[in-house]
């Protein structure tokens, strides 16, 4: 984080803590979507500690920005951010994925404070986001809807129904972030189903589109600011190219997999690697 200044340096510390929370949860389970959590931590840090308005003590505050997690298996990453944001008590971290926990492996609205929708059935989130954005406009609310979804979800036809409708209804209060880590269950996303060229597709669908390195904090901050400030009556999307395992070099280098293998002794190594990156 050597080149970052001021506020963005604070965000780097937030991103470090989000990654650390995620690794600690991964250790509880001994497994998990940890590589995704590491790749999206910078985006979540900027969303929760730069872009969004919310009240940690009142997760259902009417004026809050809504954050929808369509790719429910990224719950480990969102819990990590919600803990850092003070919406979920840090003591619950140890319960991740356990019986009676409020932090199930796949995110569900009824389980967790700050979880706005039940994900897991990939492809459903964007249509909910459209409804919420319409609802906020009906209420003349200034709140925004943020939705995180994954590149694999681009295979789902219903996502494109919703993308089209968001432009039709000029939902300028909707900011989507698609995590392009190029990995889904059966392999590299672009090989599973060719979804590029994504910028041109999103623009053709009527979205204000930015494509950034999702692990470059300056770029992520800039993209969120631009998405919020843009004056066009269009929905906004940030295409975030990310690196799975980001921040833990031996996981970055591991053969890419949707559900990576982590040996028991490696969790401590992962924490040490994060600490090293924090101080560099």
């Amino acid at each position, binding site marked *: 984080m050597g080149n970052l200044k001021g506020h963005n340096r604070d965000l780097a510390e937030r991103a470090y803590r989000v990654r650390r929370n995620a690794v600690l949860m991964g250790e509880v389970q001994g497994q998990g979507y940890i590589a995704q959590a590491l790749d999206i931590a910078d985006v979540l840090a900027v969303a929760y500690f730069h872009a969004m308005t919310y009240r940690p003590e009142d997760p259902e505050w009417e004026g809050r920005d809504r954050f929808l997690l369509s790719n429910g298996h990224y719950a480990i990453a969102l819990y990590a951010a919600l803990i850092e944001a003070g919406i979920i008590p840090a003591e619950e971290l140890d319960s991740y994925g356990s019986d009676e926990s409020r932090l199930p492996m796949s995110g569900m609205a*009824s389980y967790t404070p700050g979880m706005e929708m039940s994900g897991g059935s990939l492809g459903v989130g964007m249509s909910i986001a459209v409804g919420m954005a319409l609802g906020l406009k009906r209420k003349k609310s200034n709140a925004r809807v943020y939705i995180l979804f994954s590149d694999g979800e681009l295979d789902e036809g219903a996502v494109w129904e919703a993308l089209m409708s968001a432009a039709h209804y000029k939902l300028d209060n909707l900011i989507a972030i698609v995590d392009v880590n190029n990995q889904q269950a059966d392999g590299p996303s672009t090989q599973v189903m060719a979804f590029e060229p994504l910028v041109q597709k999103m623009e053709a669908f009527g979205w204000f589109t930015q494509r950034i390195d999702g692990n470059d904090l300056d770029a992520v901050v800039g993209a969120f600011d631009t998405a919020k400030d843009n004056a066009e009556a269009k929905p906004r999307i940030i295409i975030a190219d990310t690196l799975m395992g980001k921040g833990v070099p031996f996981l970055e280098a591991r053969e890419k997999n949707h559900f990576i293998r982590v040996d028991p002794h490696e969790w401590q190594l992962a924490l040490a690697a994060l600490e090293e990156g924090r101080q560099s």
Partner: protein
Amino acid sequence: MTKPVPSTSKPRLTTSAMIASIASEGQRTQAAPFGTALVELAKTRTDIIGMTADLGKYTDLHLFGQAYPDRYYQMGMAEQLLFGAASGLAAEGFVPFATTYAVFATRRAYDFIHQTIAEEDRNVKIVCALPGLTSGYGPSHQAAEDLALMRAMPNMTVIDPCDACEITQVVPAMAAHQGPVYMRLLRGQVPLVLDEYNYTFELGKAKVIRGGRDVLFISTGLMTMRALEAAKHLESDKIDVAVLHVPTIKPLDTETILREARQTGRMVVVAENHTIVGGLGEAVARHMMLNGVAAQFRHIGLPDEFLAAGALPTLHDRYGISTQALVDQIKAWQA
């Protein structure tokens, strides 16, 4: 199914238009009871909004759109989007009435209803035209299994109204109910029957429409009007037929159903505009078995097969759900 061979021996009926009324000739009707009732209710319930997937006119929701254009959302021919967006609007405190055909809601968008509405317990009202066998267009438009699919979903209330009188009462009742509801819709010129019986709809309640000593019809939806007509016909055959109307398929009024089924000496006949798989008949049979009610049990419903295209009266005769088919079947069983 074997391909039909054109017959030259008798005049053939033609397939009626998609929006044709199911009313029989001479039957009293009322126009667009759902749309009319919703427009009326929405005068005071400003949280109600209308949503459709390119079937506003075909579900009578266009009346709502004309009355409240700023509360009406056209979602395009995209049923998954329709129900996901309805969930999002419900999350923001609105009460969406989302309409399409029953086949598209229950078959195409099932997971979206399951995950974004039922699992999240969103206050969405799903109103679907062409339930069961009410279209002659073949399986693409015949929702023979919609009740089975929707009653298998936790949190979902399922209603199959009989006529215009009932639909008019169901609309405010489903709006007053907190939680997801699936309603089967009869649209256009809808038969008017139950007003003759001083009928009052109550969510979750089965109602005895007429008494009788020999046969107890337990019926839902439009089959209740058929059962009532059949009961009148059967008077001349000295067969005394009772009709218990069960508009709420879920939650099921098992107390009333068991009380009526326990009355000795009556054959219990469940009649539904639905496949014999997974609908009211199996639900009633289950509760009779669980509670040791050993009445003679019969079941009238659609066969477990892809149904034919053609004119509705022909199809209702062929598959045994027309009034005449009910009369013939009861006479055979009572012989």
